[in-house]
């Protein structure tokens, strides 16, 4: 009972331990903020990274022939819910303002791809009725039906086609990452608004461009490769833009262009063509020797159609199955498929390995491991600071106990036990820990919740932009506190405070009453 009384009295009369408690609070806040941001970064990275990764993929960059048959077999497996064929390659894109950017070009079938990944949900320009949570003034252009024909833009994006301006026929079109063109600017409330871009004319004047990228066309430049992986003549193709997408991962939104699978197959020379028998020398380019209708143009003998190819199959797990289950099933199915199409498709041993069949986590493992290590490193540094704070409490308590030696002697003289004295100092440490941790949790919660506003304010006021999306992948800093992490940080903070008080408490408990009473 006297422990409570003295703890309360010391809490309200001694400033130094309270300062230590504040220090502990700041350390707690620091650890929790860093953990929340870095942990949130990792979680966002994983969840956003999955947007276009599916649960697993089968990859063979030179192209998997007979992929329709493989898809049929894969979709018959109970672990696999859906499969989408894609071509995943690299190229260079020329933007409306004549800028050139290196990009990842992905050929998809809009609808089948949406069955496997959240492609349709990533499409940004679409009609919406509810404003984004922070868009209190409803300034998001998508809320205004008179601004653009949002529904048509959305449908164009899903089908990756667009009506030709002259004929009205639907022609292949591209869907571009929203950060690529530089024609939109993201507001703090989360919505995008178009910004005016201009390009110079040959006569030196300047042409103001239409505000929206989907009213322009881009030019894709691709270097195809044959089934043996040999580079062929570069291809250039102007494509109208159907719409833009946003995943939240800056790197994807900055460097990805989606086009129709059939169009990309054609540009990459991975569509169905007539096959040829190898010439004795073995060195030939079939596309220079075979006409589109499959007839021989020279001394090369045709052998019938060579099937179309895709570089990747993206797989979605059936409900109740894990990505690992999907990977195992994919390898099993591929073995059967390779057996059936022996000689005309990559062999099972070429595909059934960690490079050929990957879960989404394996695809992102390099990045995820790097982020995990960085998080662990930063956290361990801040935990070390918290331990230093515990040492600070120890030092302050040590000094206080020296100052209070006589009081301890008095308490022992009136019958206080050693355990009681030790308990008093430990509970004092624990209360300081609780006060500091409560302070720290509150502070961390406020900071994390408002971290984007704070960051924006720092940017506007001081020109200090710590979070550069080009470096950190996301345009928004993660702003969620994980309750489990908060619990661990709180427990550890209180634990360190108690730890810091144990040694001084033991010292106090073992002071001889007579020595303490004579202490000056």
């Amino acid at each position, binding site marked *: 009972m006297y422990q409570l009384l003295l703890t309360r009295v010391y809490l309200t009369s001694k400033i130094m331990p309270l300062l230590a408690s504040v220090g502990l609070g700041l350390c707690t806040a620091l650890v929790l903020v860093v953990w929340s941001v870095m942990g949130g970064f990792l979680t966002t990275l994983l969840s956003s990274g999955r947007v276009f990764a599916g649960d697993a993929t089968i990859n063979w960059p030179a192209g998997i022939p007979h992929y329709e048959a493989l898809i049929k077999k894969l979709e018959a497996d109970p672990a696999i819910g859906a499969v989408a064929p894609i071509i995943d390659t690299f190229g260079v894109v020329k933007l409306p303002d004549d800028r050139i950017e290196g990009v990842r070009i992905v050929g998809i079938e809009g609808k089948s791809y949406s069955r496997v990944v959240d492609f349709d949900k990533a499409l940004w320009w679409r009609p919406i009725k509810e404003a984004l949570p922070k868009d209190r003034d409803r300034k998001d252009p998508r809320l205004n039906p008179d601004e653009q024909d949002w529904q048509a833009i959305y449908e164009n994006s899903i089908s990756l086609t667009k009506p030709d301006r002259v004929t009205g026929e639907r022609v292949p079109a591209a869907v571009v990452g929203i950060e690529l063109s530089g024609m939109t600017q993201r507001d703090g409330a989360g919505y995008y608004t178009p910004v005016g871009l201009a390009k110079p004319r040959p006569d030196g004047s300047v042409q103001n461009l239409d505000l929206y990228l989907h009213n322009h066309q881009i030019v894709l430049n691709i270097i195809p490769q044959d089934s043996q992986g040999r580079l062929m003549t570069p291809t250039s193709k102007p494509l109208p833009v159907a719409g833009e997408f946003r995943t939240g991962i800056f790197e994807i939104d900055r460097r990805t262009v989606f086009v129709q699978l059939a169009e990309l197959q054609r540009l990459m020379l991975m569509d169905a063509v007539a096959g040829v028998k190898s010439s004795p020398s073995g060195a030939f380019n079939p596309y220079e020797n075979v006409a589109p209708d499959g007839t021989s143009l020279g001394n090369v003998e045709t052998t019938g159609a060579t099937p179309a190819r895709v570089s990747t199959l993206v797989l979605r797990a059936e409900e109740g199955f894990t990505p690992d289950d999907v990977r195992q099933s994919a390898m099993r199915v591929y073995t059967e498929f390779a057996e059936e199409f022996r000689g005309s498709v990559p062999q099972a041993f070429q595909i059934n390995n960690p490079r050929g069949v990957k879960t989404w986590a394996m695809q992102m493992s390099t990045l995820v491991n790097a982020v995990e290590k960085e998080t662990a490193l930063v956290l361990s540094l801040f935990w070390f600071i918290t331990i230093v704070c515990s040492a600070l409490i120890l030092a302050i308590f040590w000094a206080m106990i020296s100052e209070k030696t006589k009081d301890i002697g008095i308490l022992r003289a009136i*019958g206080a036990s050693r355990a009681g004295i030790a308990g008093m100092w430990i509970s004092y440490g624990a209360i300081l820990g609780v006060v500091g941790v409560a302070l720290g949790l509150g502070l961390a919660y406020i900071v994390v919740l408002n971290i984007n506003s704070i960051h924006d304010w720092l940017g506007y006021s001081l020109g200090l932009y710590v979070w550069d999306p080009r470096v950190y992948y996301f345009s928004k800093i993660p702003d969620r506190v994980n309750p489990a992490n908060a619990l661990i940080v709180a427990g550890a903070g209180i634990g360190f405070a108690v730890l810091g008080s144990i040694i001084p408490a033991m010292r106090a408990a073992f002071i001889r009453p007579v020595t303490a009473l004579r202490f000056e």
Partner: protein
Amino acid sequence: MALIQTANLKKTYQLGHVQVPVLRGVNLSVQPGEFVAILGASGSGKSTLLHLLGGLDAPDADDFKLLFDNRPINGMNAAQLDQYRRTDVGFVFQFYHLLPELNVLQNVTIAAMTRWGWAFSSRRAEVEKRATELLRSFGLGDRLRHRPVELSGGERQRVAIARALINGPRLILADEPTGNLDRKTGAGIIDILLERRKAEGRTMIVVTHDPELAAKADRVVRIVSGVIE
């Protein structure tokens, strides 16, 4: 039967490499309700004897006797010694030894808190009433919420006496209770102690070198060079 009984009680302190014998074999017997004054020069071992009687220090391990109510104090374990100091003994020190952060009432009730532990909360009203009555009877009724630093020396010593009495101990051990006070204030403190002892029949051992105080005792023992004359 004697309340306090010692035989051949010795205590030696180690000061660096030197052994300093303070008590060289004290034989003392104090009857229940008796007021004994221990007189002696500085360094004669008076306070050390009081600390041994109060269980604050341990005598040298030798052939000795140290009994309270026929129970060996030296045979008590740590918990029993704590209990002994809580319930059977009340200490009054020369320099008051009040806790500076607590007010007058808290300085008195804290002794009851150590006695009752968590059960104190159910006895709080009763204890505070008794402490208030004690302090009022000592003329401190209007100083209950004052801190020790706001009190005079005499007032502080009266608070210390109230703290020593709050648990109703059978034995009061006072170590030069007037040693730090002027003659008049010291006389007032002695009157309070004697009045209480008489009213409640407590045993009191007072260490002093004040002959006037010693004259009021039932019995005076002199300690010279660690032995009782």
